[in-house]
């Protein structure tokens, strides 16, 4: 699925950017971007479906050791990196990503 065919929206770009900068969990993405969880999760689902991020469950063992449920984490894919670069370029003119980049 080539990235050029899918123009992603501004909030989705924010989410992808957060993941690219190493944020792993959904709620942390919400913290980082300042978006509502109700916006972050659908964005993550969409990015997942596009192949821009991949998700995985942390190991049961770790979770059990820490006596908490396992959490799902997200990572950017190579396709996602390309798509992010394209989207950043598209939104650059607006100068709106600076806040996130500096965060």
């Amino acid at each position, binding site marked *: 699925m080539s990235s050029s065919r899918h123009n992603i929206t501004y909030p989705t770009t924010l989410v992808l950017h957060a993941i690219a900068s190493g944020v792993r969990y959904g709620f942390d993405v919400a913290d980082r971007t300042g978006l509502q*969880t109700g*916006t972050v999760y659908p964005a993550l689902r969409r990015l997942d479906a596009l192949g821009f991020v991949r998700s995985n469950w942390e190991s049961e063992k770790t979770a059990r050791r820490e006596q*908490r*449920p396992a*959490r799902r984490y997200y990572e950017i894919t190579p396709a996602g990196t390309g798509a992010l670069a394209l989207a950043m370029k598209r939104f650059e003119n607006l100068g709106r990503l600076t806040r996130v980049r500096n965060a």
Partner: protein
Amino acid sequence: MPDLSRAIVRFASRLVPSYLRRDFRDEWEGELWADGQRPPDNRVRPVRRALGAIPDALFLASRQWSVDMLTQDVRYAFRVLLQRRAYTALVVLTLAVGIGAATAVFSAIDAVLLRPLPYRDPSRLVQVFENDRLNHKPRYPVAPANWEDWRAGTHAFEHLTAFSEGGGSLSAGAEPFHANVPAVATDFFDTLGVPPRLGRTFVRADGVPPHHRVLVLSDRAWRHHFGQDPQVIGRRVAFNGSDYQIVGVMPAGFAFPTREVDAWRPVAETPDLSQARALHFLAIIGRVRQGVSLQQAAADLESVAVADQHRYPATNDQRGTTMVSLGEAVTGGARLPMLLIGAAVALLLAIGAVNVANLTLVEATARRREIAVRAALGANRLRIVRQLLVEGLLLACAGGLLGIVIARVAVQAFARIAVDYVPRIDHVAIDGRVLAFAALVSLGTGVLFGLVPALAASRPDVQQELREGARGAVRRSRGIRSVLVIVEFAAAVVLVIGAGLVARSFWNVLRVQPGFAASHVLTASIELPPRYEDDAPIVQFYDRVMARLSARSGVRAVGIVNNLPVSGNAWTSWLTIENAPRPAGEPPEVGYRTASPGYFATLEIPVIEGRGVSDADNAASLKVAVVNRALVQRFFPNGHAIGARIRLGPNPKAPWRTIVGVVGDVHHDGPDSPVDPEAFLPAEQDVNSDMQLAVRADGDPEALVGAIREAVHEADPTVTVWQFRTMDDIVDEHLAPRRLAMLVIEAFAVLALALALVGIYGVLSYTVSQRVPEIGVRMALGAQRTEILRQTIGDGLRLAIPGVVIGLAIAAAASRLVSAVLFGVSPTDPLAYGVLSAGVLVVAALACYLPARRASRVDPLTAIRA
């Protein structure tokens, strides 16, 4: 983790497709737990966070409806339907026939009844008749003087215009042709509110002689006879030998009062005409004023008519008015039959759809394992319902498309046959409205028969289903389906019996001896120009034509008559018998025709007593008459009519005529009408300028068309001869409406029966598939195959027989409704009822045979193990 947050996630997870549900819940609970571990000051309100689960869940749910998923459903549906070819074909065909019939009937109803008349503000147009209460004729033509009084005395009408149908020979340079040219009042076009396409319509001054010799052409005549010449305005033509000028051309689609109108001319408003109160020949069209109700207008009109009753008792005694909307006047008789057919077709379609639902239910039962597997693999209920719905819609679309094709063919065929008998049917078309109707019906039936079984089949008990293919489920609906089959059979029997009675009537009509021999006779109409005023030249002209024709080889006999039998034209007159009081209660009216000596021989009407018309009966000789047997039977109880003297018409000074012969009875109004008393006068003693010619040929009568043209042309080249028809054609044309009605009702009967058969087949197939294990057990215990076969067919007939009985009862009760169209057969004819209901049961048994054979071939071993 706070309970509220957890509850929100739980709730949201229900919206999520089941195969994603577990992950969804785990992810949200994991995040919420992690959130709870943070230092309190850094914590965002957890409930607000949890609320995000709802949009997330909705997003995941909506992905089920993505284009990709739907395409998948459609592809899967295609595969399933192609695998089940017999089922698919049966369903598509049933739907196509149902939707096709509904669409065809809708397009006809739309053209004839629904679409407004093509005139300005047609709801305010009315037609007005005289209501002759004395003779019980509520829709009698109007006398000119009465019309004048209505026009002057009423206030409710914007216009009250008049026309009378008529025609004559029109010559536009080439060969003269017969043209239908009604004479209309000068405000005729203003009343209808349609502007001309070229030139002008009539103005007031056009009605005053000698300025009345102007014509407005119809689109039809402009096309066929004037080559659509845009320069036609101002052109001079000869109409009935007089010089007329064309002043206008009407647009296509304006054809009033008949489809075949060629032109309109103004009524010459002479003082004589406006005095005529006993001459009834006008049709009156009114436009009711804005703000005046139709009731008020009718009352206004009636009050003027009542005043005339007192002022002119001799002519206007008990003469009132009848006012109907123009729409009703135009479509009148077609309304009720059309609506009845519409109701019948709606019923057929509904039965067809439910029938298909039946079949689908049977299919769904067969597919329960598949559905259970899909449910076990995580398909939620919505997804399964959607899948079945997609299949339903796909079938409905296929049925709809095929149905539109069927409708198109049917409508074109119907319009071609019915054009002369159903008003406005020539406007019928499969247009946007009709296509929208077909699409709506298709979607409606698709959803109906897709959704119901889908809901029933999508709630399988997965475990039990997978374990053993449960036996008892979905049995609730069986009772309903049995009732449905019974209803179908009742409806089918009613229609089949109706069709049988109508067909039998048609057969009876065909067997009636009409009193004349139609075969080998060619007829034509002759129209003399107006300069033939005196009797002598008219007689001379016809003598010459008949002499020339008789001399031709291949001509056996020639005659002329004013009105041919079955042609729809007939004159009547008052009969007075010398020295005999009129029998009490008998109507004094008898039919009368004028005929030449050869007429009886040409049509082979037998002379029973005395003689027919002879060559010696001319203007100078004794006035004579020939009467038919019915007249003798009714007015001469002793049977002796020859030598008696009669007088025709109300004029007491008219000469007495001596009866010189009695001829056989002729069904002049068609074989399905009774014979009326009738008198024939010698053509030379009662001269008419326009006569109809009948020629009996040795061989093919159509070969004589040229001979007749030549003979007329040689006698006088300015005379118009037209309307060449064989006598067989005339009879055929008369029978056409009856044949049409027969075809329509037979089509419906066949449809209804087919639906009933599909219905019983479906239900029985279902029952058999349900009972396979039971049948297996019974066969294992020694039941014979023939026994199973017999029993299964018996099961089917147990549904068909009550249906047939109910249908017989309904048919007997409703038969009075159709008695008017029956001929020579009782509406409760036991033979028709017996034979046809037995026939229905036989085909029902055949429809049961297929599932029954399947039942009898059940292999006990596999059946029990399954």
